[in-house]
């Protein structure tokens, strides 16, 4: 069962990443790109957890946590740049 579900889920996430990237390429505005990037980060978090299940190792969990954290920081910074220019004024 798992043998089927994991590849399927992986495929879904993979497809999601591709779609995100598509949006990132298309834009049209910078905000769209930030959104796409943010979504990529979130999807990658999911992907890492999935990979952990797939490889049956829990060591990727921290990486997932960190991706979530760092993705957030990146998004904040990019948005702040659009809004204010200087992100740590």
């Amino acid at each position: 069962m798992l043998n089927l579900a994991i590849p399927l889920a992986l495929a879904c996430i993979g497809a999601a990443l591709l779609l995100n990237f598509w949006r990132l390429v298309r834009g049209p505005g910078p905000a769209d790109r930030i959104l796409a990037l943010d979504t990529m980060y979130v999807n990658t978090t999911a992907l890492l957890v999935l990979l952990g299940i797939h490889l049956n190792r829990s060591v990727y969990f921290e990486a997932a946590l960190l991706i979530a954290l760092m993705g957030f920081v990146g998004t904040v910074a990019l948005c702040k740049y659009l809004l204010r220019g200087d992100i740590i004024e």
Partner: protein
Amino acid sequence: MLDLLISFFLLIGGAFALIGSIGLARLPDLYTRLHGPTKATTLGIGGILIASMLHFGAQDNGPSVHEILITLFLFTTAPISAYLVARAALHLDRQEDGDRL
């Protein structure tokens, strides 16, 4: 049985993540696109995290609960990201179209 449950959550998660991204890809403007990632993707990852909890919890080194942490974290930050993106987009649009609002 457990496998079934895990698989279910995995598939739910994967599907929602995909749906969120589909929304991001095909919806017409930024504000509508925002909805996909903020909601569907969040749930998607939630599903996968539950699956992970079940999967690792079932193994012999005790319950696996730290996935909750990611969930919590994502649920705290995703709305802010969305808010900021929308805020930025509004700001940019206003520049272009004058004060629409």
